[in-house]
């Protein structure tokens, strides 16, 4: 990794960005999401925070232009130069420009806007081009595939040398299983387990709930640590039915009966709990069995009884054409779901003593495990 001369960097952690115009290649919300994800690549590994503003001068002004577009560094038509950005500083400092003679996409066609933006924002933050061909800051465009993007280590070291590592901010990703048996004699094999994965920036915990307690398990730990639920969230009821995290909004949603709570870290968001029918469920629905957010699609799947729903987090609406039968879409996992979580493009469905590893990409079950294999039992 390399820095600009004089190691230019921002002297503050809270930065603003503004999207000045849009390419006609993508829908507006696709462009918004691509840039938001691109900033999150860097905020995930540093104390940096990025806030979008919609008027005035932001630290990082983002625009699409062609040929000479006002900064005397002209683009060159299709291909060749794709985008550029200026190192931290006043005026043009930090700004990122994208060549609108390119075809921008959110997949492998044309040039992936998220990938190019993540690279340009590296410049906006003070990273120059890296000589490491595997680095995000390597100057040549390479499409890295559809499944979850991971910032290469070369870039992590570079940006953390400029801004330090991130603090212990929790982001949480959930699995949902509910315990029916009393806590005192927790039996992995038969009881249902409520799990969620808490992820600090550099530590990854798995937390799982029982009626009044939850267990905290770090991947390198053998023994789970037992914590009283109300010591974290005093307002929450015991015996939660389901929970999931919305990484886009950095919110955690927890369900019990007909109510849903939204958590931001340790705080419960104002106006919650709400009724689940406000999300689009029928009024007569009594509870939700399990929920999982699928990062790549931006949709959250809710399972109740033998049916499941799909909720569009971006548009905040329930998708048309639901509910559908679980067995029709996820053949082989049974007709109910105790719990489900997503990791690296796989959904892990828990149903009684079994856990089904379902590939989102190939849309089929690729492995069947024991429910308690999560505890290395």
């Amino acid at each position, binding site marked *: 990794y390399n820095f600009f001369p004089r190691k230019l960097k921002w002297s503050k952690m809270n930065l603003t960005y503004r999207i000045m115009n849009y390419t006609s290649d993508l829908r507006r919300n696709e462009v918004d999401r691509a840039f938001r994800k691109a900033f999150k690549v860097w905020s995930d590994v540093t104390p940096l925070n990025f806030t979008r503003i919609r008027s005035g001068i932001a630290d990082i002004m983002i625009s699409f232009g062609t040929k000479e577009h006002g900064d005397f560094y002209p683009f060159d038509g299709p291909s060749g130069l794709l985008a550029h950005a200026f190192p931290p500083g006043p005026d043009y400092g930090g700004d990122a420009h994208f*060549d609108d003679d390119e075809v921008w996409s959110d997949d492998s066609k044309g040039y992936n806007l998220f990938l190019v933006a993540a*690279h340009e924002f590296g410049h906006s933050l003070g990273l120059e*081009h890296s000589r490491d061909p595997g680095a995000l800051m390597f100057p*040549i465009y390479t499409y890295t595939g559809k499944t979850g993007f991971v910032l290469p280590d070369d870039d992590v070291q570079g940006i953390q040398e400029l801004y330090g590592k991130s603090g212990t901010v929790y982001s949480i990703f959930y699995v949902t299983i509910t315990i029916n048996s009393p806590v005192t004699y927790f039996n992995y094999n038969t009881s249902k387990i409520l799990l969620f994965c808490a992820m600090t920036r550099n530590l990854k915990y798995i937390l799982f709930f029982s009626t009044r307690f939850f267990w905290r398990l770090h991947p390198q730990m053998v023994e789970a640590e037992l914590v009283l639920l109300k010591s974290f969230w005093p307002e929450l009821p015991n015996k939660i039915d389901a929970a999931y995290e919305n990484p886009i909004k950095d919110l955690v949603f927890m369900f019990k009966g007909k109510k849903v709570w939204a958590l931001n870290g340790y705080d419960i968001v104002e106006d919650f709990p709400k009724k689940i029918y406000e999300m689009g469920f029928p009024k007569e629905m009594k509870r939700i069995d399990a929920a999982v957010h699928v990062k790549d699609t931006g949709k959250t799947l809710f399972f109740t009884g033998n049916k499941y729903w799909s909720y569009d987090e971006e548009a905040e609406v329930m998708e048309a054409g639901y509910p559908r039968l679980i067995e029709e879409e996820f053949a082989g996992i049974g007709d109910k779901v105790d719990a489900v979580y997503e990791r690296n493009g796989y959904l892990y469905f828990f149903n009684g003593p079994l856990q089904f590893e379902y590939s989102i990409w190939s849309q089929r079950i690729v492995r069947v495990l024991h429910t308690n294999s999560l505890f290395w039992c």
Partner: protein
Amino acid sequence: IPIPLEDSHEFTEKDLQFAERYLRTHYDLRPNPAGIMRKSGNTVAAKLREMQAFFGLEVTGKLDEETYELMQKPRCGVPDVGE
């Protein structure tokens, strides 16, 4: 600007202009007003060497097929080196 060439490949005038523009944009090659000796650091050969070193190519200071091929790849407009 005369560009040192590896004689294994025929480059057109247009190719050479592209290569010169590439080195100006990304390696700070500055134009040399006619008749004024250039500091060695700013010769085309030096810039080619810089680019070849940056990308891990064989460092010859001459435009060869592999170097030219790499110049063709879509990329970011920020210079690789220089102010």
